[in-house]
């Protein structure tokens, strides 16, 4: 199946068997789903995961590049649908339809500096981007990743984080808001780390995903350092229903997040992000 090429893929959920389940933190789980056919999903795109009788949730792919046999989604248990899905075990199935949405600007970032800023579960949609960047390091100048979490216990993808921290060809920073005894890393919000990064503002692409307030402060911090708002990309989240731009549930000003996004340039969102109740 190739997602958008198939009408069934857009409207009718297909059931995929859970091959593996990993508990990433207290309330975050990754599911590796078995595919019978290749599934063309790109970093930034999402699927609608379905809990029968409860509803659907939009969840980004969290590992890549896409493989012919495995699809990975990382889910935080925060509501009745995600509670239902997170309770499933290997051997059971998860129903999904997709893929939907646009992608991170990996191609337009070629040749320049790239900075990734992820907060909390926002690291999940960013992981395929980091993996893609690392697989093509020679095509970019300098790659920096800033990863924020509430505490070290809530830092997801710990094996990857350890590997990224150890790499000399990646400027990686993990920072936490609350440090338990023994934590010797950085403490503070991601914006504090941005001050320390080296990049050439006019040749930098920033990609950020996390709580909206964090993304707003992050984008402003990069603007303050001279990065054009057109070069800063945010992944937005709203209450999505149809995922194809018909129902209008995820309207955000003039934008429909599921159809026009979820990845947007900051220049298109800056004014909207400062409107309350939007």
């Amino acid at each position, binding site marked *: 199946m190739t997602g958008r090429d198939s009408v069934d893929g857009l409207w009718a959920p297909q059931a995929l068997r859970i091959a593996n389940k990993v508990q990433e933190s207290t309330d975050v789980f990754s599911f590796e789903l078995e595919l019978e056919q290749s599934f063309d999903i790109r970093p930034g795109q999402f699927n609608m995961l379905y809990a029968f009788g409860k509803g659907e949730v939009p969840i980004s792919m969290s590992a890549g590049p896409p493989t012919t046999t495995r699809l990975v989604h990382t889910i*935080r248990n*925060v*509501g009745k649908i995600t509670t239902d899905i997170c309770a499933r075990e290997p051997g059971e199935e998860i129903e999904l339809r997709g893929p939907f949405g646009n992608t991170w600007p990996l191609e337009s970032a070629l040749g320049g500096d790239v900075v990734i800023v992820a*907060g*909390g*579960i926002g690291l999940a949609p960013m992981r395929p981007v980091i993996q893609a960047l690392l697989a093509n390091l020679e095509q970019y100048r300098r790659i920096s990743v800033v990863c*924020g*979490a*509430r505490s070290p216990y*809530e830092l997801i993808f710990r094996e990857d984080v350890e590997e990224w921290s150890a790499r000399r060809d990646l400027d990686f920073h993990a*920072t936490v*808001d609350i*440090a338990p*005894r023994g*934590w*010797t*890393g*950085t*403490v*503070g*919000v991601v*914006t*504090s780390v941005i*001050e*320390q990064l080296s990049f050439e503002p006019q040749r930098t692409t920033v990609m950020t995903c*996390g*709580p909206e*307030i*964090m993304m707003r*402060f992050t984008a402003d911090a990069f603007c303050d350092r001279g990065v054009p708002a057109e070069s800063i990309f945010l992944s937005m*989240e709203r*209450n999505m229903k149809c995922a194809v731009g018909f129902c209008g549930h995820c309207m955000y000003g003039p934008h429909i997040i599921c159809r026009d996004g979820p990845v947007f340039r900051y220049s298109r969102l800056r004014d909207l992000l400062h409107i309350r109740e939007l």
Partner: protein
Amino acid sequence: MIKKSISDLLKEHPFFASLPANYIEFIAGCGRNAVYEAGAYLGREGDPADVFFIIRSGLIGIESYAPDEGPITVQTMTAGNVVGWSWIVPPYRWQFDARALETTRVVALDGKCLRAKCEEEPLMGYQLMKAFAAEITGRFRANRLQLLDLYGRAQK
């Protein structure tokens, strides 16, 4: 290897970017280089705050000590940051502990010496206070974001 003077080091530091060179020369007279190994305290809560630090490299934890938990790090500071502003404000005592979390190189500036120079040269004092006001504002903004506990909230 050419050894850099204190004024050279201050001129390279972002904190002093807005200050004219002649003021930096004047301030440098109150400075000295220092190295703190991991675990060493640069300042302790309640002690006289007669010094502040310009971090050249390394990592410093701003901490408070809790009897049941030991040191709790509220924020970390690294190259490009400034540690300590209690030297400006009476009663000139450290409000938190500042401890090196790894080998840390700093320029230590004598607060008493600098206070005297600020009195002697009010225009320089005003410029320095403006630089500190910007630093303090940035630190408060970061602390407030931390207090929002952004990642702990359910994303809707």
